[in-house]
Structures are given as C-alpha cells and as structure tokens.
C-alpha cells in the first residue's frame, strides 16, 4: 500500500519511498501518477494564484457650481502606483537585476526610479566630469561625495516614500527614487495607463504618488475567478481636486 503522509514539519503531503520501491509494475504506474498529482498539489500550495491589475489615472475637478470636470490633454506619465494588502503584509521580492541611476550628460537617467524597500541602487558616473549625488529627503538622506567617471557608489533604501536626489555641483540634475513597500508597483505612461503583474489573490489599497499631482487611493480585489478567467482586474484612479476643501 502507498500512503500519502503529511510532513510533520511543513504539513504538506508526501509519499513514502519505501512503499514505492517494493510495489509491483501496475502499482508503480499508479505511484508515478500519484507522485505527479502530489507534486502539482504541492506546487499549487507554494505558488499562490495571482492575476494582473491594470487601469489608468484620470484627472478631474469637482465643484458645486460646475459638477465634475475632466482634465484632458495633460501628460500623465510618472505617476507611481503601488499596492498594499488590506489584511496582512506581503514579503517584498527583491528583483535579481540591480537598480541603477546613471549620471550621464549632466542628467540622472532615469529621472524616476521605483525600487522595493530593502533594494540597493547603484549610481555610476558616466560623465567625464565630477558629480556629487545627495538627498535631503526624510525617507533617506545621504551624500555620495565627489567622484569621477567610471566610479560608482550604492545606497540601500530601507524606508518607503519619495527620495529626491540632486547633484551639489550641477543645478539641473535632479531625479526621484520612490521606495515602495513591496514589489507590487508600476509607473504610468503618458496616457496615465499602468499594469501590475503577479498580484496574489486578495484585497488591496492601491495608492498613487506624484510630486505635483493630488494623491489618489482605490480599493482593489483580485479574486480566484479573475485568475481563472485570466483577465486583468481593471481600475481607474481619480486624482480629483474638490472645490471648497480649503483650510
């Protein structure tokens, strides 16, 4: 007899190997099928079902006098979208590829970088002139000091929020690193569109940040049925300004 047993350590079902080696030929086929079934089952337990959240940010203005006015024609790129579960917390998955902001042609490239809390960012100097990268943002103040072409320094960001960076020598060099609490994040394109892949089933608060635009927040739920159908969960985030909301 072959008995699936539950591991005392992990609680997962496993097969007794003693039983496999002593079984007859038809029984071995059954063993292989059962092993396959148990393997798939174990994989399902390890990989939580996940889907895609997609949508766009929109701008509007609400006033008692005119009702809701949509604002069109504005470049909506660079709005940071990030998701936090309503219940519990997601363990951040740090990307294998390291994040980099280059100093090239007296600019930072890219000018907006999204990183996960705990992630390290490299700052190589590709210019033939000396730069001095620094930030005085409360989320992570730092000073990389003066360094030349070919050199690089790195910073690990452990606090969430926007980190504005500058060069102490060159006036026009500025960029933003936004540190998100987990890897469920995206930045919008010029039309305000975004999509976030591999969002585990659950309920989330989807939040936005932009240096100049109003903040927005939406509740989003990724359900098992959404994952099975394979369609993204669509959501619009209204960055609206309301009249009369003055201090």
């Amino acid at each position, binding site marked *: 007899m072959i008995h699936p047993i539950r591991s005392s350590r992990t609680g997962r079902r496993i097969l007794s190997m003693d039983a496999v080696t002593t079984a007859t030929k038809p029984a071995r086929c059954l063993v292989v099928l059962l092993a396959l079934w148990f393997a798939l089952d174990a994989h399902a337990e390890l990989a939580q079902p996940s889907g895609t959240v997609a949508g766009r940010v929109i*701008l509007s*203005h609400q*006033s008692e*006098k*005119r009702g809701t*006015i949509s*604002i069109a024609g*504005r*470049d909506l790129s660079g709005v940071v979208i990030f998701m936090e579960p309503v219940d519990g917390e997601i363990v951040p998955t740090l990307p294998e590829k390291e994040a980099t902001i280059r100093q090239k*042609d*007296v600019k930072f490239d890219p000018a907006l970088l999204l990183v996960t809390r705990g992630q390290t960012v*490299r700052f190589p100097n590709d*210019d*033939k*002139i*000396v730069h*001095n990268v*620094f*930030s*005085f943002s409360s989320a992570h*103040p*730092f*000073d*990389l*000091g*003066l*360094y*030349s072409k*070919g*050199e*690089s*320094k*790195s*910073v690990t960001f452990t606090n969430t929020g926007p980190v504005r960076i*500058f060069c*102490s*020598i*060159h*006036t*026009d060099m500025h960029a933003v690193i936004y540190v998100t609490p987990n890897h469920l994040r995206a930045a919008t394109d010029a039309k305000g569109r975004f999509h976030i892949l591999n969002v585990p089933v659950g309920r989330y608060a989807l939040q936005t940040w932009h*240096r*100049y*635009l*109003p*903040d927005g927040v939406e509740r989003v739920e990724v359900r098992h049925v959404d994952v099975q159908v394979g369609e993204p969960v669509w959501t619009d985030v209204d960055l609206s*300004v*309301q*009249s*009369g*909301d*003055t*201090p």
Partner: protein
Amino acid sequence: MNRRNSGGSAPGTQGALLAAALFAASIGWAEDLQTGRVTGHVTVRAKDGAASANRRRSAYDSVRLRRARRFDYQNPGEIVVHLEALAAVPQAAPPPVPGGETPTTLRLVRAARGLRWHPSSSVVSVGTLVEFVNEDSKPHIVYSKSSTDAFQYYLDELDSQGASRSVRIKAIGPVEIQVLDAEGVQGMLYVAGRHHQVLSGSAEFELPRVPAGPYRITAWHPRLPVDTRIITVTNGASTHVALDLSVNHLPKVSPDQDSP
C-alpha cells in the same frame, strides 16, 4: 548681501498718523513682554574640492556638458531664517492695519513662454492671507500639496479673468502651488514663523524683539539640506546661532568595492 526683515503684516496706506498711533500702542504693549534677540550667521558653501574638481579645461568639452548650469553658492537665491515657538510663548499682537489686512498676492499670468506665477516664489508669515488671481483669459484650477505633508488644501477654480481666491496659510513649511490643467506651472510659497528674515547667500541675520522662550530656528533653501537648532531666548539677552546649509552634514556613503 541682501536682507529683508519681517515682523508681521505690511502697513496700510490710509492715515499715516492713525497707523503711527496704532503702531505705537502696539509697541507699548509689546514692551511689557520679556524679549531678547537672536543673531547669527548662515553659511552656504560648496563641498571641499568641488570647485577645483572640474576646473580642467577639457572637462566641459562637449556641447551637452558646456550647457550644464553650475550651482552658484555665492548667489543661491533666497534663504529663509525663521523661528518657531516650541511652547505657548506669549507673542505681541501684530500692529493693526488701517483699512484691513492686505493679502500677499500671487498672479497667474500668460507670458511669452506660457503660463506662469508672478512672483514665482514668495516668503510669508504663518497666518498670512494669500490671494491667487487669475489674469489669464482661460479658467484654471489651482491647488496645492505641501511637499512636507504638513498640510494639504485645494482651491476652487478661477473661472474668469481677474477671478481670485484667498486662503489663510496656517502651517509652517514650503508650499508648492500647482495648476491642475497645466504642466510645469509651479509657484512656491515658504510659510515662515512670524519672526523671520530672508537672506541671499551666506550672511549675518538678526531677529529683534523675540519673546523669551524655547524656539526651533531653521534655515531653509529649496535645494539644500535644511539646518535646524533648538534655542532658548532669554529676556534682554542676545542668542547667537551659526547655521550651515552645506551638503557636508548628510550621512556619507562609502565607495562600491568594485569601483576603481
């Protein structure tokens, strides 16, 4: 060196004698307070070695590098030094203004390069009435999101030429004024404590007639690390503070091991 002091609202124009009498009454009441003065120096300087680092003739030899603007530490723009009371320190009431309070005005104007705020930046005392005037032919939606999250507020649309809205700023800190329907049209207000001074570059400062008590003194520039100290102003005495807006005080980072 250019310095501009402020101790409250600007005087009105009606009745110089009446204003003088009211001001004298106000000073008389203020003299009952125990006050001291705060003096000091603000330093703005480049990092050691930065000036000589790119001095080689060949350093800026490409078009892109030649266009690079270098930060001018001699003339960095407005620096604000101000005090924020840390306890309920009794303050002299600002002198009453005949004819009512005159608000600080920011005008939204259409210039050759497009829409912009005039002035583009302004320093006001906390509690000041700020008026936003639309001088463009189109309606605009104006709002602000404080970069420090000290507060956040929205303003109604300015729906016809000459339309205006006013708001009384209640929190200290930088406030960026935005136009929702237009990109890149930012105005900057710095809301300072009532006792403040505006400098342009490294300079001495003096804040007179400060009621005795504990304060936070701050030197602020939009592109430099803020410097803040806690001080106690004592009656009849002068408190000296040295403030430094240099990058040098930020936490240092070591070079990568794989760097040459």
